[in-house]
């Protein structure tokens, strides 16, 4: 992939993370829980967004991020007070910022009015127009360069090197252009360069500056060492020498000055243009390329240093040293001018003297001189370090994971079948084959868990979209709402997560639009103006439970009942518990909104939510307290691929009951079973009566129930908390089964959640416990729900 595009993708990925962090920080700021570090983190996030946007020339995003960043900076530095109003403005602006990022990514554009509105609000916080374009002006010209410079990739630089001169020329950096500028246009400049000790303390080196200067044209370097004290008074931390350089170049003063950009505050620098053409030895066409000249000049500079070293050291500078210590154009050729020089000087001069007068008082880079033996382990460490610093994740195509999961699913089945065959073959349980199979089973289980873990992701990715949604709905409905989220780190299978988004979105809209009162209504009810909606995720009993709770008005039961009767969903005289009335809202064709609003009333009712949850093998229920609010509870399997089940026999069918729903199993005693109205059985389990459902009858395998005493009762609990005892003939055992969707392969059947393939290769149906329990409870004739006995 084009590296430019690849980095851009990284940028947008990072933006998602940054925006998430920023939003959390902003929410904390709004609730007054933000400390300095939180505010700083928000600033940094926006700052990074802007930085990346700058690199990619995303003007709209830069502009918006810039003003956002400015506000954050003011808050961070204490110049602006973080009021509720400011926090709310920032949150609104944040949504626009996120839109800008999305627009930049998708090549769209944020609606002008929206962007301008938020921009204006932020500007308003800063007050005044002062800096506006100024702050950006400096960068603007740089932005223009970026696309060009990234094109150095590939075709231009096959060898992995940049032709720096060509690049410089392209980028508008002025360098002498050989064979183009006639020699007689070269001006002569005199540069006096006197470093101060501070310059060396910052790891700048005079030699490098001279080398840089030589890139501009021919130089004649004179070393001024008059202030150099005798050796015994020399301090390693002081700067003693300076240089006078005559430079022949067609560059202007600004370009020359740029060479000294990093050091100009730490040196005395005088740059003067000589009045006349260089009188002596003006470079005529000597056939040398610029590089050669630069090299030669560097050599001259180095020669002076060498001479100096030699003099200080009392030795003779080897004249032939010069050509060998030429400073080439970096970075291909490591220009070890100073280091090489020192090495050479050390060979001719007494060591202590040689070291003292080097331009840099600090030791030269060890890299150049490091012994090979020491370098080897160090290099190994160097290789390990970046790996540790970089994130240790890989990205894998989801299809591959799914193929793996499917294969593991088959493995589980195959392993079960094999176990069964071995068992049937009459081999002793202690036989080697059986023992080996047990190990295999454990291993299979472990593989399966590991594979499932690959797909597990925190629900955060869905939750993080909700604060924004809450703000938008609140804005549209004129309500005030605070969304509190918990358990974002709760992990669940990726497919489940993806399909959670819609139901949660719908329920959240519903909660704010219908559940919460408007501020006046809340005031009348004696509640704070701001409504609270809690969104919570947790693991419970091998499932993930999502709760959405509001502190609004709760379900208006008489009204719900009235509507249900009017729509013909229930009969007028039907007796329903509060819970059952509440749950009427999930029935198809039920909608309580009198005015179809923009938000919840999109032709989608709660029945659609329930269907999509059920499609995931989940349940949804509501509990409500009038005047205090409602709570929606969704419960979903952690994975859609496997299930721990209890294999049972009913009406000669092998069926699987999800283990998560099972409380206990028992053998019914005849005296504990009672019949209500002569036909609906209930069983007494300790002090409670629960319905006794004959599974064979419920699923239509047979007409009449078996004698309870001849079978086994499996006590199950539905998501809604309702209990029932399922009557089956026998329990075969506990087993992990691979779920095969019935809907995908056949069609949905009431009371059946899915199917699986057992060890003997037969298909078994997986019971939908909740459906069985609720169907039983819905029967209008008798409602033998739990009743306390006085005994």
């Amino acid at each position, binding site marked *: 992939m084009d590296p430019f595009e690849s980095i851009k993708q990284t940028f947008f990925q990072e933006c998602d993370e940054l925006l998430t962090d920023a939003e959390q920080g902003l929410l904390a700021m709004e609730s007054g829980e933000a400390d300095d570090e939180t505010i700083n983190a928000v600033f940094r996030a926006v700052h990074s967004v802007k930085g990346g946007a700058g690199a990619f020339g995303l003007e709209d995003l830069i502009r918006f991020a810039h003003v956002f960043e400015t506000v954050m900076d003011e808050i961070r530095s204490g110049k602006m007070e973080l009021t509720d109003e400011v926090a709310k403005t920032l949150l609104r602006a944040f949504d626009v910022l996120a839109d800008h990022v999305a627009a930049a990514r998708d090549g769209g554009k944020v609606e002008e009015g929206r962007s301008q509105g938020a921009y204006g609000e932020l500007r308003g916080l800063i007050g005044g127009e002062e800096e506006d374009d100024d702050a950006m002006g400096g960068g603007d010209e740089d932005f223009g360069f970026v696309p060009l410079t990234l094109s150095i990739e590939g075709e231009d630089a096959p060898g992995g090197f*940049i032709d720096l001169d060509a690049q410089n020329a392209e980028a508008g950096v002025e360098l002498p252009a050989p064979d183009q500028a006639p020699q007689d246009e070269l001006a002569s400049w005199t540069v006096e360069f006197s470093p101060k000790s501070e310059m060396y303390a910052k790891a700048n080196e005079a030699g490098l500056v001279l080398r840089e200067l030589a890139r501009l044209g021919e130089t004649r370097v004179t070393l001024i060492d008059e202030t150099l004290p005798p050796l015994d008074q020399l301090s390693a931390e002081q700067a003693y020498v300076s240089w006078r350089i005559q430079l022949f170049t067609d560059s202007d003063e600004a370009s020359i000055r740029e060479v000294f950009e*990093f050091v100009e505050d730490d040196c005395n620098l005088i740059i003067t243009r000589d009045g006349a053409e260089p009188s002596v030895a003006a470079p005529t066409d000597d056939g040398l390329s610029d590089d050669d000249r630069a090299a030669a000049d560097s050599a001259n500079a180095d020669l002076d240093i060498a001479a100096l070293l030699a003099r200080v050291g009392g030795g003779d500078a080897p004249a032939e040293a010069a050509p060998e210590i030429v400073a080439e154009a970096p970075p291909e050729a490591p220009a070890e001018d100073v280091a090489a020089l020192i090495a050479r000087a050390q060979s001719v001069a007494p060591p202590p003297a040689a070291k003292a007068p080097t331009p840099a008082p600090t030791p030269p880079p*060890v890299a150049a001189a490091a012994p090979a033996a020491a370098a080897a382990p160090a*290099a190994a*460490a160097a290789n390990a370090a970046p790996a540790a610093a970089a994130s240790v994740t890989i990205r894998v195509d989801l299809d591959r994971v799914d193929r793996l999961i499917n294969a593991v699913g088959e493995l589980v089945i195959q392993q079960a079948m094999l176990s069964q065959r071995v068992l049937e073959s009459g081999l002793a349980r202690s036989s080697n084959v059986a023992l080996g199979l047990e190990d295999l089973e454990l291993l299979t289980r472990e593989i399966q868990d590991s594979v499932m873990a690959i797909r597990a992701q925190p629900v955060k990715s869905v939750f993080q979209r909700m604060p924004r949604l809450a703000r938008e709905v609140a804005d549209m409905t004129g309500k005030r709402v605070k969304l509190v989220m918990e358990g974002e780190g709760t992990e669940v299978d990726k497919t489940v997560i993806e399909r959670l988004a819609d139901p949660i979105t719908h329920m959240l809209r519903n909660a704010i639009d219908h559940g919460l009162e408007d501020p006046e209504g809340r005031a009348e009810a004696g509640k704070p103006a701001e409504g609270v909606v809690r969104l919570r995720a947790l693991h419970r009993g091998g499932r993930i439970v999502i709760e959405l709770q509001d502190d609004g008005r709760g379900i208006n039961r008489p009204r719900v009942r009235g509507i249900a009767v009017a729509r013909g969903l229930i009969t007028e005289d039907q007796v329903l518990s509060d819970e059952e009335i509440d749950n009427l809202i999930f029935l198809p064709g039920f909608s309580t909104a009198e005015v179809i609003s923009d938000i919840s009333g999109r032709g989608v009712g709660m029945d659609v939510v329930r269907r999509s949850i059920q499609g995931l093998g989940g349940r949804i229920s509501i509990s409500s307290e009038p005047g205090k609010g409602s709570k929606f509870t969704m419960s979903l399997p952690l994975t859609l691929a496997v299930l721990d089940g209890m294999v049972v026999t009913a009406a000669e069918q092998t069926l699987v009951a999800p283990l998560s729903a099972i409380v206990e199993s028992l053998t019914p005693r005849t005296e504990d079973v009672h019949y209500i109205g002569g036909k609906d059985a209930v069983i007494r389990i300790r002090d409670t009566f629960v319905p006794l459902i004959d599974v064979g009858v419920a699923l239509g395998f047979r007409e009449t129930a078996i004698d309870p005493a001849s079978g086994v009762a499996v006590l199950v609990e539905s998501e809604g908390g309702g209990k029932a005892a399922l009557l089956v003939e026998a329990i075969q055992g506990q087993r992990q089964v691979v779920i095969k969707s019935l809907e995908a392969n056949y069609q949905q059947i009431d009371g059946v959640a899915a199917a699986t393939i057992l060890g003997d290769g037969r298909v078994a149906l997986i019971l939908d416990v909740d459906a069985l329990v609720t169907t039983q409870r819905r029967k209008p004739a008798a409602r033998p729900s739990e009743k306390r006995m006085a005994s």
Partner: protein
Amino acid sequence: MSKTVLTIDDSRTMREMLNHALVEAGYRVIQAVDGVDGLEVLQANAGQVDVVITDINMPRLDGFGVIEGVRANPEHRATPILVLTTESDAAKKERARSAGATGWIVKPFNPVKLVDAVRRVAA
């Protein structure tokens, strides 16, 4: 021997851009994700790093802290440090300078300027 540059930046995008431009120019690049990490990586690669490029705004330890940390360590004090500044913020640049920064690169940088700056300080 190609020179080694240690880049310290909390932004993955920026690290990738630096990496791309520097590798393209023939440097070896080591990355660190914040100031603390940067100093640790520098220590782990003692004697191997020719130039340090650091961002200013970072969690845990900012760029100024990095500069001070490098300059305070006799082993690394001669290592050139380039700071990345987003805005041509004079105050920040000055603060970095007085802490001991060797030079600076103004973001958004273009690779030519970046490589120029590295060459200028890399012995």
